[in-house]
């Protein structure tokens, strides 16, 4: 009951006219920032952070949190419409959102993304309200072996899928891992894999450069080849009847909503992870648990719903270690954390006790931000669809230019623009040769988290790999991951065995 009292006090703070106005403004700015390729929530929050000096700290963080939320909604828009991930958190949304749009079902994908974002956001805020302090201690209990175990689990969800060619999936993961190894070695501090001795490879490949290259440029080239120069137009329309039947289909994916929300929230809480791995993992699990996984990658609604629910849930989740431990769960919360220091707040376990107005105002504002974001987003869908009806011959150069600008904006290095073009050609070739691209992207996101966790674990244990098995949290995760990883092999052997016994009997 004390909780409800605190929360209602929080709502009183959040619904002050200034704060409410800032929340709406934050959501709108966030939608835009998220939808622009290259400009993610990190940039948005970082750029606007100094302006928040004009208002009290509680209002400032509400504005920035609303922006963070809005960006999670907005990222899906360009992922679906243009096939360029608007932000790294929306990469998984392109996997199925883009095919849906190509089939003239952009309205379905956009509505699904908005509603799933709302569900993910709301479910995670409820979890946050109820369990924030105990969950903070869970985040503390997650050491290196636990994080590494979780990373194996994430990889396993992608390998252990039926449908894709497993050899090609593993190959794709390996390519991703090699690319993620470029840059500086955390343990020794030495540069490694400086390809062709180019200075640009002395630092690691920026994820957005890679995602925009592979998805934006690669996808565009692929579409040009498929359309063979014909003027293609998307048949995207929106009518009352279509919307009703879409809603019915989307409602039918409630399992993916719940799974995405829960998984995203949990991954978001863990320091170092954040919304990008969360949404990729949710996609993997949704595909794995689906009745017919072969639909994924070809326009499955669950493939849009799961990552979108997860990235919003993760953005709430990543606020938790920020507030309670002073450790950011994602790059955006790292910037917010800097903001808290500037506003004179000391994040840490005592924040919930010393700054109740601030904390509960923020939590209440998350409920409000979610509501506004979904309403504003859905209201704009007809406009997006009108834009999508532009012939592809006009859209393609637009995608190209947006990709270029986005690639440059994220790092401000010309080297990265060239790299992005080369990666784009690489992505196109992978598609042409029928290699799945998603596992490579997953490896690039998770590799830099998994590698230090593995090496730090082994340093601590003195090289004993049992550390991943005999710890209470890491153990079960590792075992589940290994079972998933070898599931295809087990199935293969089992089928052969059944066949041979049948032959022997017959």
């Amino acid at each position, binding site marked *: 009951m004390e909780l409800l009292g605190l929360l209602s006090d929080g709502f009183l703070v959040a619904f002050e006219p200034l704060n409410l106005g800032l929340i709406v403004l934050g959501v709108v700015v966030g939608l835009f920032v998220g939808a622009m390729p290259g400009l993610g929530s990190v940039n948005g929050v*970082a*750029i606007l*952070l*100094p*302006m928040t*000096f004009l208002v009290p700290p509680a209002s400032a963080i509400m504005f920035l949190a609303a922006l963070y939320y809005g960006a999670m909604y907005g990222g899906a828009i360009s992922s679906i419409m243009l096939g360029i991930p608007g932000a790294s958190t929306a990469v998984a949304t392109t996997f199925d959102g883009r095919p849906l749009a190509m089939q003239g079902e952009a309205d379905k994908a956009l509505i699904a993304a908005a509603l799933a974002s709302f569900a993910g956001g709301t479910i995670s805020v409820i979890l946050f309200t109820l369990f924030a302090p105990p969950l903070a201690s869970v985040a*503390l*209990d*997650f*050491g*290196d072996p636990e994080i590494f175990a979780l990373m194996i689990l994430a990889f396993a969800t992608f390998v252990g899928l039926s449908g894709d060619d497993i050899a090609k999936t593993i190959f794709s993961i390996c390519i991703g891992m090699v690319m993620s190894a470029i*840059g*500086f*070695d*955390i*343990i*020794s*501090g*030495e*540069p490694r894999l400086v390809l062709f001795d180019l*200075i640009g490879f*002395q*630092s*690691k490949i920026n994820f957005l450069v890679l995602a925009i290259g592979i998805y934006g440029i690669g996808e565009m080239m692929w579409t040009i080849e498929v359309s063979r120069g014909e003027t293609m137009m998307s048949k995207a329309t929106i009518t009352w009847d279509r919307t009703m039947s879409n809603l019915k289909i989307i409602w039918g994916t409630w399992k993916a909503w719940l799974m995405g929300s829960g998984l995203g929230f949990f991954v978001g809480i863990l*320091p*170092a992870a954040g919304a990008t791995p969360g949404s990729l993992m949710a996609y993997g699990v949704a595909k794995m648990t689906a009745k017919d996984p072969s639909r994924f990658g070809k326009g499955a609604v669950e493939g849009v719903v799961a990552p979108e629910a997860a990235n919003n849930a993760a953005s709430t989740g990543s606020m938790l270690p920020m507030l309670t*431990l*002073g*450790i*950011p769960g994602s*790059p955006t919360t*790292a*910037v917010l*954390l*800097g*903001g808290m*220091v*500037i506003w*004179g707040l*000391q*994040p*840490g*376990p*005592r*924040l919930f006790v010393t700054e109740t107005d601030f904390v509960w105002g923020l939590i209440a504002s998350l409920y409000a931000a979610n509501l506004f974001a979904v309403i504003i987003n859905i209201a704009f869908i007809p406009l997006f669809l009108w834009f999508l009806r532009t012939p592809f011959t006009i859209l393609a150069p637009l995608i190209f230019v947006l990709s270029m600008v986005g690639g440059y904006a994220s790092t*401000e290095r010309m080297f990265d623009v060239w790299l992005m073009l080369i990666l784009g050609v690489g992505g196109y070739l992978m598609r042409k040769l029928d290699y799945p691209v998603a596992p490579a992207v997953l490896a690039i996101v998770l590799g830099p988290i998994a590698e*230090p966790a593995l090496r*730090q674990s082994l*340093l*601590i244990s*003195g090289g004993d790999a049992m550390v991943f098995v005999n710890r209470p949290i890491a153990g079960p995760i590792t075992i589940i991951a290994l079972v998933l990883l070898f599931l295809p092999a087990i199935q293969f052997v089992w089928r052969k065995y059944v066949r041979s016994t049948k032959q022997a009997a017959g």
Partner: protein
Amino acid sequence: MKTIFRKLLGVGIAAGLVTGFTAVTGKTALAWEPVKPIQFVVMAGKGGGADKLARLIQSIIEKHKLSSKPVTPINKPGGSGAEALVYMKNHKDADHAIMVTLNSFYTTPMRQPRLGVDPLTFAPIARMAEDTFLLWVNKDSGIKNVDEFVAAAKAAGNKWIMAGTGKASEDNLLTDFLNAAYGLNMKYVPYKGGGKVAKQLAGNHANSTVNNPSEQLGFYEAGKTVALAAFTDERLPLFKDAPTFKELGKDFVYYMQRSVVGAPGMSADAQAFYQGVFKKVYDTPEWQTYMKKKSLQGELLQGDALMAYWKRENEVHRKMLIKMGAIKG
């Protein structure tokens, strides 16, 4: 129609050029001013001490309107600052690139001669403060003083985990000092950023750390971690119960600079501009409060005085690295 349009365009461009030219010449007559956003490179991960510092400085500059162009922090955390140093060295626009540095400013180039970075080629803008170090343990360990720490670490031998911020970083030097001074054999495990190191201790994944106060303060105030001793000349006001290592008979004092440097090749005019900006930042009430709250020490050093300080510290670190066997003499 077309020709009229072209003519209008031509007139427009000409007018634009003229006004632009007068604006530029008008400005250079006064003093150097940035003409585009200033990149503020952070040689550490997000959420670490250096990162929070950079963002604080950024907001002070914005709040007091100390620069006509925005200052935008960029994190280059790779390889104990190597990524940031190389980035600065190769920067094509030295007048618009400044960096917030720590002591890896000296040690990383020594350890990696292949980088071809010489810290003394950077432009000395301002030493804003010196950060302090303390020895920390988790409260659950029951350890209350350095004697108990030494006994426990000795008993654990190589199983005693000291978490720190990278190989041959400040934390690594302090760990080596403790190992040598007390005959310990602690295992040093590097992490990316002081925030992560602090969390390792609070979550009982490491046995001890040598965090800066600002990184451990949240956990300290929540009663999760304990400060045993300080690597300073005098006790820190925030941690009065923690003796200095000097008091304990080990003559070892170590500080970390929190300095702002300009990219190598920065023009003298630009240096003067940034020195002016950071002098003003230092004098703001926000900066003074921050120093007190995070128990930062030291006064402002600029220009030649800062260069002299770098030369001295560079030699001190060279000797320390030779002693620990990280580089050859």
